[in-house]
């Protein structure tokens, strides 16, 4: 039953990805100002949205770990696994944002990069979570998970700053298309395609998030068994 559910979910995800790609490349119209390069939006924006949501998952996991670590060690380990999975998959999507953005910028603005508020805060967000992952990889000892949880909470504070940056400051990056000032928005023929791609990337993101969570839970069990074996030896 479990395998069937995983298979059905994977199938739906693949169909959504194919449909989203077809819509983005063959159905959506070219932008009147930017032409074909505008189609990068159908990868760039959904990836940013998924990264934000997964950093929120990491935040919830980090808070959960700190809340449960003394009274419910098992729940704390589950929370820690979500924190790691959210941060790692969030970094993957944030990397997509930070590589597709400059490719788009080079054609739209004539420059690869500029130190404006949106781009800089996004890079800082990526650096914080990369340092989080490096710390988890290379630090050892019982305090590692606690330190990681604190850094995970600190890192998540940058997410609303990234989101609000092009509302608070004048940026090279375009003003928000959705939820922006009066007159912002998108033609339905484009918004529809963006929504399909949003659904496809969320489905894909959730798939690899759960896979990463399962791997981390197995790793925790292996580490616990190894520690037990070492004690008994």
């Amino acid at each position: 039953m479990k395998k069937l559910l995983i298979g059905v979910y994977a199938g739906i995800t693949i169909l959504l990805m194919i449909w989203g790609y077809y819509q983005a490349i063959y159905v959506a119209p070219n932008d009147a100002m930017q032409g074909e390069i505008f189609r990068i939006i159908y990868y760039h924006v959904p990836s940013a949205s998924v990264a934000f949501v997964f950093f929120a998952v990491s935040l919830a996991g980090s808070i959960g770990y700190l809340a449960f670590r003394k009274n419910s060690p098992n729940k704390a380990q589950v929370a820690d696994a979500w924190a790691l999975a959210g941060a790692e998959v969030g970094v993957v999507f944030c990397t997509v944002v930070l590589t597709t953005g400059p490719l788009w910028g080079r054609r739209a603005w004539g420059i690869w990069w500029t130190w404006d508020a949106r781009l800089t805060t996004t890079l800082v967000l990526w650096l914080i979570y990369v340092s989080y992952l490096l710390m988890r990889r290379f630090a050892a000892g019982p305090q590692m998970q606690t330190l990681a949880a604190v850094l995970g909470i600190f890192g998540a504070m940058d997410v609303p700053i990234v989101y609000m940056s092009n509302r608070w400051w004048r940026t090279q990056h375009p003003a928000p298309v959705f939820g922006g000032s009066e007159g912002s928005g998108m033609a339905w023929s484009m918004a529809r395609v963006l929504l399909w791609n949003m659904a496809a990337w969320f489905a894909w993101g959730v798939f690899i998030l759960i896979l990463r969570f399962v791997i981390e839970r197995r790793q925790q069990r292996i580490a616990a068994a190894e520690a037990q074996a070492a004690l008994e030896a």
Partner: protein
Amino acid sequence: MSEAAILDHEFLVAAYVVVWVIQLGYLAYLGYLWRAQRTKRLK
């Protein structure tokens, strides 16, 4: 097709390639972790 349109197309293809290299590369990394754990458990 103008030179600008050709460049736009090339940049768009590059972006899509980069996206899939990152995503499938990460999936391969997860596959590697999964396999490594299985080997460890079998030992």
